[in-house]
């Protein structure tokens, strides 16, 4: 039942928060915070005490839903899901916390949408029935649309519609692929089922396998994002309210990476192998092009948004390299990127809230004005450029190491992305923190609550960088099971 609670807590919390907001906005906020804290605490209790069991599944739950069609309410958690749900809980608390002083309108509705996105994300990480998976996939889309459209910035309608169209259209392709897989399996075996475990071994003709694989791949590639399907991302991240950007960058993009690892390669191993070279090329292009575009921006949030394109290129690289090192790297990269980019969006959001602009040309010399915020921005920029000791380095190093086993040239070109990462990170610091202060700016530095948020994220990133073994152990079994025998490098 724990698994149901993980989803139900934010769902119900959102509704209660909406109801309470009629009486007090503060109560709505407190309730949302309590709900997300409860979810995180519950997820922590799932942390396995020993990782020696052969079975990768930590907990499973299966209930009949629409038995005629073989649709079940099937939730399962393994190490991979657990890590991502922990990230969801952490960033959920961060998003509620950062909205405390930044969201004043329709507070209840805001928290309803925010918590429902988080519930959808949690469901995506847990669902083991493809129909149910698709349900959660849609569940996280619609509230996110409202978060951008109702609480976003100046071009919010445009960004929200763009986000919706990209995600919805690619999601429909995935739905077609799911249905096709369902019928193929039905034809081959006579069993009607959407259950992941059973569909895993469906024999597929090369062409239909490739088409179905592409259906899934496009949906996840839009989310990850993969160049050239990335252009919704800078608009959505930039226009979303701070909490929306944190959830988008920190969690929604991770559902793409998760989908690749969980579904694309295991369901269609041959097709994925056949497609691996184009995918690796796209990954490397994403790393370099994302970094280049990040440098080109003048809007602070847009710059940070493009860094995601670059960083998550490493995830695509790791997934299509498909060996233990690279996959572990991809997982650590997802967690670290969620934390570090989430933190950068928090900081950018605070600055925008105080300055009323995201234009970096209007900033400069802010380190002197807001030294704590400056130090935090320095810290997370260093994480973004892959400084050893921080989680992102472990993710990138392991991914590169795995890739090098497969192909020296891909690894070398991807490693050039580390140089470019330094360029955009330092450029951000250069524009925002350094130089002479403009006119005497009097904006407040980080408050205690903001400091607490930033400190928690900083600790998480150091933990991932200096003591990653606990995380590696948790995901190792799940990944070993996915890799199958002979998957180790």
């Amino acid at each position, binding site marked *: 039942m724990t698994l149901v609670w993980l989803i139900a807590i934010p769902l119900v919390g959102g509704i209660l928060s909406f109801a309470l907001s009629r009486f007090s906005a503060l109560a709505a906020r407190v309730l949302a915070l309590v709900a997300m804290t409860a979810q995180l605490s519950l997820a922590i209790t799932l942390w396995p005490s020993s990782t020696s069991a052969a079975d990768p599944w930590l907990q499973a739950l299966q209930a009949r839903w629409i038995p005629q069609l073989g649709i079940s309410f099937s939730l399962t958690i393994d190490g991979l899901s657990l890590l991502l749900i922990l990230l969801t809980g952490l960033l959920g608390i961060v998003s509620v916390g950062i909205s405390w002083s930044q969201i004043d309108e329709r507070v209840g509705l805001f928290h309803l949408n925010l918590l429902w996105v988080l519930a959808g994300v949690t469901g995506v990480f847990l669902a083991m029935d493809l129909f149910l998976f698709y349900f959660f996939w849609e569940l996280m889309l619609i509230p996110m649309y409202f978060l951008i459209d109702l609480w976003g910035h100046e071009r919010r309608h445009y960004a929200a519609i*763009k986000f919706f169209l990209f995600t919805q259209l690619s999601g429909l392709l995935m739905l077609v692929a799911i249905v096709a897989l369902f019928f193929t399996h039905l034809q081959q075996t006579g069993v009607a089922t959407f259950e992941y475990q059973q569909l895993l071994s469906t024999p597929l003709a090369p062409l239909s396998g490739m088409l179905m694989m592409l259906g899934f791949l496009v949906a996840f590639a839009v989310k990850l994002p993969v*160049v*050239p399907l*990335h*252009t919704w991302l*800078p608009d959505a991240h930039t226009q979303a309210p701070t909490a929306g950007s944190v959830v988008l960058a920190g969690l929604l993009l991770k559902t793409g990476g998760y989908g690749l690892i969980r579904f694309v390669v295991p369901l269609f191993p041959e097709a994925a192998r056949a497609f691996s070279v184009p995918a690796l090329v796209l990954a490397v292009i994403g790393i370099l092009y994302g970094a*280049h*575009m990040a*440098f*080109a*921006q*003048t809007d602070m949030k847009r710059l940070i948004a493009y860094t995601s394109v670059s960083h998550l290129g490493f995830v695509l690289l790791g997934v299509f390299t498909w060996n*233990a*090192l690279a996959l*572990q790297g991809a997982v650590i990269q997802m967690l670290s990127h969620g934390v570090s980019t989430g933190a950068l969006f928090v900081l950018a959001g605070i600055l925008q809230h105080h300055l009323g602009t995201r234009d970096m040309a209007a900033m400069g*010399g802010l*380190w*002197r004005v807001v*030294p704590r915020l400056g*130090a935090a921005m320095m810290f997370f920029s*260093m994480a973004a450029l892959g*400084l*050893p*000791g921080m989680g992102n380095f*472990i993710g990138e*190093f*392991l991914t*590169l*190491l795995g890739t*090098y*086993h497969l192909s*020296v040239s891909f*690894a*070398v070109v991807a*490693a*050039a992305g*580390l*140089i470019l990462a*330094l*360029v955009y990170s*330092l450029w951000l610091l*250069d524009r925002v*923190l*350094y*130089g*002479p*202060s403009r006119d005497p700016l009097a904006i407040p530095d980080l408050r205690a609550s903001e400091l607490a948020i930033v400190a928690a994220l900083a600790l998480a990133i150091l933990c991932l960088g*200096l*003591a*990653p*073994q606990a995380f*590696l152990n948790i995901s*190792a079994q799940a990944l070993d099971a996915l890799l199958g025998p002979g998957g*180790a*490098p």
Partner: protein
Amino acid sequence: MASPLYLIPLLPLAASLLLGLAGSRLPRVVVAIIGVGATAASFVLTAWAGSHFLSGSLQGQTQVLYRWLSLGELQPSIAFYLDPLSLVMCAVVTFVGALILLYSAQFMAEDDGYARFFCFMNLFVGSMLTLVLADNLLLLYLGWEGVGLCSYLLIGFWYRERRNVTAAFKAFLITRVGDTALLIGLLLIFTQLGTLQIQELMQRASLQWPVGSSLAVAAAALLLGGAVGKSAQLPLQTWLPDAMAGPTPVSALIHAATMVTAGVYLIARMHVVFELAPIVQWLVALVGAATLLLAACSALTQWDLKRVLAYSTMSQVGYMLLALGVGAWSAAIFHLFTHAFFKSLLFLSGGVVIQGLEEEHNILKMGGLRRDFPLAFWTFLIGAASLSAIPWVTAGFFSKDAILNAAYGSNVGFWLAGLIGALLTSVYAFRMVFLVFFGERRLEPRRRQGLVTAVPLVVLATLAVVAGYLNLPHGGTGAFTALLRGSFLSTASAAPGEGGAAASLQVLPIIATLAGLAIAALLYLRQPRWAENLGTAPAIRVLHRFWFVGWGFDWLYSRLFVRPWVYLARLNRADFVDAFYTGLAAVTIALHRLLSLSQTGRVRSYALAAAVGTLVLLAVVVLR
């Protein structure tokens, strides 16, 4: 009971954390005590560990703090390795570091970023110690990047001036290019040898890779790439002169004594890999020889005192690479050792003058300052003498002599480069001395030197003289070489230079040095007119200009890399990929408009359309 090695880097790191979190609320005295004390305590620990080590069996020893990560064969630990080489490096870093921090306690007294300064400096010392003590390449890389970060933070310490920030950006970026080569080297080494543990991988390399094998060459070349970035050697040398934008103690510690020699340390540490790739080792010597000449020429033309010293550092590190390239491992480390003393001494005593003249860096505007800054004068003179390798009485003489001897034994071309370099070194070193301290007094000093800053000057000046006697050549004690032999056991040519140049040729470097001194005295002390006349010749002016801008590398890189990159970024700010989707949207909207035109609301036109449609359909059916 061996001393806990991990405390050596951990103490400065902890001090840095403490100062970073609470520094702005602590009184300055406390900040200084923490800032200087932590590094000094590290030195005491190093001395303790060293005395244990020297009285023991001299075997390398590893102390594991914890396992960093464990994935199949990838088992790097946070572990520290003590052997003669890392002991020497630790001693240099903590000893010189503590002295420079002591100097800074007074030198930086009026800066608002006092706590921030000590926080970054201790972070640097901790990272540098991690680098030199690391038992595996991944931890070494952590330290390697850590010192790069600190270098960036400290070059841009006065971040309100754009110039400083740009210099910091440039330094971090160019070294990152080298760092990335090093990282790819790590990938190669781990993939091929299955370990990143330094001693283990060198053993496996010598078993698995035949001499000259392409893997060994690739690995060594990638390591060299990392080294030339950090050590400011060709072709990644351009960041070092600009790095002088940082406070003077930073230049002394990071950009003279320690961080820029990290590349030398890396090559020495990984010497087995280089011995397996003779062609790369030859390249190391070539890079060193070329850099030492280029940088020495540029040093001749600078007017900014700190830039002269920066080019001089580049040139001296070139000597170290030359030594490494000819297999004179311990000679390279010995020069690193003496250079740390005399070069940081030059920076610190120069810093006294610069601060005394209220940030005047231009040596052409100075002159006759020896009575105003007597201690700075004498210590700077000792530093310059040691840098120029004035025979028998300076440390620099013994270390440079060892390098030239070894070079002669290997390749006369390299020896010649070193010889010419010795002449140039002595010219630019004494050019500084004469221009700053002799001649007419043109500037009125505003400040006197503080007492605290005097201590490091005296100590370093003493060492700049006596450190050479640790390693007397030609039947002398040779204690330093003997000690380091423990780190270079596998090396056949552990003691090069024994069969080096003949006695008559050994006189040549001495002559070169003295000739340089004479030239400098003539041009900048006796007959300044001559120097001016020389400068008016057109050919000389062009050459002067060319050397002044560092042989045009900045110009080249700016056109090759920076401008195209920025141009493309500006051009494509709106992301051309998006044009496809917005185009798609535009087409959709246009079609929508077109179709909605037909929705006129006039029944007549609807009837007409229906009739035409029916006719067309009928025609299709009938005419088939």
